[in-house]
């Protein structure tokens, strides 16, 4: 097995110990518009081990969300390779990428991204809707179990507009959990919440990581939260600085 220690970039010892979940090599992302060329990511090398809880920090515009999109297989790097469980994703078809997102990755966003016209339960069922061979009954069971984990079993029939920000983010986490992912990508999950609710969400993510062994990569602006995670990766202007 290829270990993280083989990588040129500095890595925390925890990553070296665990099997590799994800490896980024020389990732570059350049946004080309008519007037300007933006280098969002500049030669990023990163290895994440299974079961790690990593936080990513850096000033606004330094490329954190871009990195998460690439890790989440929602965007392609301009150059460099992304490997998931040892296999470069360029070898996957669109359909296989969608399946990987569906089965391995859960997403949590700063602005929740719940579908307002669907009930809490329907929102949480969403990842299972895109999975072949899951019956309606099974979808329901898994969604209810996920909602139970985030403590929202009583709100299944509500619509997102009837919930507080913290509750909405818990629904979003339940949705990320429902599909049983190995990796959760959270882009400023507490960014829209006050500190008390932010704390709640943070505790939830920590519990998931510890109790269920889910790998979590979280972008945050909160030093205090970042310190609770195993590893902090800092970015500046598209480059990893630490």
């Amino acid at each position, binding site marked *: 097995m290829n270990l993280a220690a083989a990588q040129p970039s500095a890595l925390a010892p925890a990553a070296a110990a665990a099997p590799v979940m994800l490896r980024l090599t020389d990732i570059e992302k350049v946004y080309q518009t008519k007037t300007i060329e933006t280098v969002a990511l500049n030669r990023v090398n990163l290895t994440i081990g299974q079961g790690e809880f990593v936080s990513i920090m850096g000033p606004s515009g330094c490329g954190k969300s871009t990195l998460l999109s690439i890790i989440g297989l929602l965007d392609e790097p301009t150059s460099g390779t992304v490997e998931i469980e040892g296999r470069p994703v360029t070898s996957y078809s669109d359909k296989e990428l*969608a399946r990987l997102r569906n089965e391995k990755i859960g997403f949590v966003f700063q602005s929740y991204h719940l579908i307002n016209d669907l009930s809490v339960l329907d929102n949480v069922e969403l*990842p299972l809707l895109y999975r072949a061979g899951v019956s309606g009954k099974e979808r329901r069971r898994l969604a209810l179990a996920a909602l139970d984990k985030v403590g929202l079993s009583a709100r299944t029939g509500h619509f997102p507009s009837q919930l507080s920000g913290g509750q909405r983010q818990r629904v979003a986490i339940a949705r990320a959990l429902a599909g049983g992912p190995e990796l959760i990508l959270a882009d400023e999950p507490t960014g829209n919440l006050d500190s008390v609710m932010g704390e709640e969400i943070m505790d939830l993510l920590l519990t998931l990581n510890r109790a269920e062994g889910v790998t979590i990569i979280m972008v945050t602006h909160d030093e205090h939260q970042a310190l609770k995670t195993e590893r902090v990766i800092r970015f500046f202007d598209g480059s990893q600085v630490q």
Partner: protein
Amino acid sequence: MLRHIFRLIWNRKRANLLLLSEILFSFIVLFGVGTLLFTFGQNYLLPRGFAHQNVWRLNISAAQGEKMPRPVLDDVLRQVRALPGVLDISLGSPNTPFRFLTMNSEFRHGNRKSDITDRYDADDRYLTTLGLTLREGRWFQARDDANPRRPAVITQNLREALFAPGEPVLGQLIQPADQGFQATGQEEYQVVGVVENVRPGSDFSGPQSGMWLRLVPYDTTHWEGAAVLVKVAPGQGPALQQRIVRTIAGVTRQWSTEVRTLEADRLDKLRVTLAPLAALAVVGIFLIVNVALGLFGVLWYNISQRRAEIGLRRAMGATGRGIGHQFLLETMVLTTLAVAAGLLLTVQFPLLGAFGGPPRVYGMAMLLATGVVFLITAVCAWQPSRLAARIQPAAALREE
């Protein structure tokens, strides 16, 4: 997925109502246009019931205050008949086919009453001159002079209206419907023959029930004009028309004659029938194009409103194709709902027998409207759905 889409549509019922009513509206318009089109088409395919080709219409009129005595009229008919190229000649009423002139009334036999029926006068040569097709009995003959009642020939549809199927019709009596029972014998017509249905209105009008009464003008002195039909040999033209005019002028200088072909009458009528139809078609097409553009706009707007949702679904494991299919499916489900409502509405026409159209025509119009509406929505949803499929998930999720 279908259940998911139903739930989504149900939860967005307010937003979808506009789209639904737009589709329903185009369905109704298409149904109306289709009904007209199929009615006209069906009529067009029916036999005319007479042969108007090579039949000319002579409009002979006496000068102001002049008389039209029968011997002179007979002389005119005889001389025109004798012209080379003239095959047959007949005296009748001026309501010849395709003219903007009708005479009609309702008739009765026992307790059965007819619809509005065209009523014509015709002499013994009319059948062959106009080429009607006899089904039963005979046309008028000289021996009818002895009949105290006026002989009548009726169309098959009038027979069906006034007589039970299989009921003998020859020799039976028909009265005008508005005449009281007491006045029997006053106005009674005796059926001597039945002819195939005729469509004298226009190429696109349906069969009209008709009745010909034997013209017995022993005295025509009070006439101011006479309507004469002339059957000519194929290929005859203006030369013969002028000879006819000159021949009649040779008999009496007091009368003037106008010759027109029934074909010209047919074209006149066609023009007048087609003008409103063309206008209707233009309005219909305009409406449909409007609805299609509206639909296109609404779908486009919907998708731009739902970019974040699209990004999210991609993150949850939908492929770009899957997204396109979802939007297409959503539109098709909406269309199905609107079409179901439209069918429910339009099926009332044949069920209630509204406007008396045949159920088959309504059925075909419903089929046409369904097909075209699905086609229009599919075409309108195609491009927006492709657009949805191509939305970059990372970019869509970034916007808020």
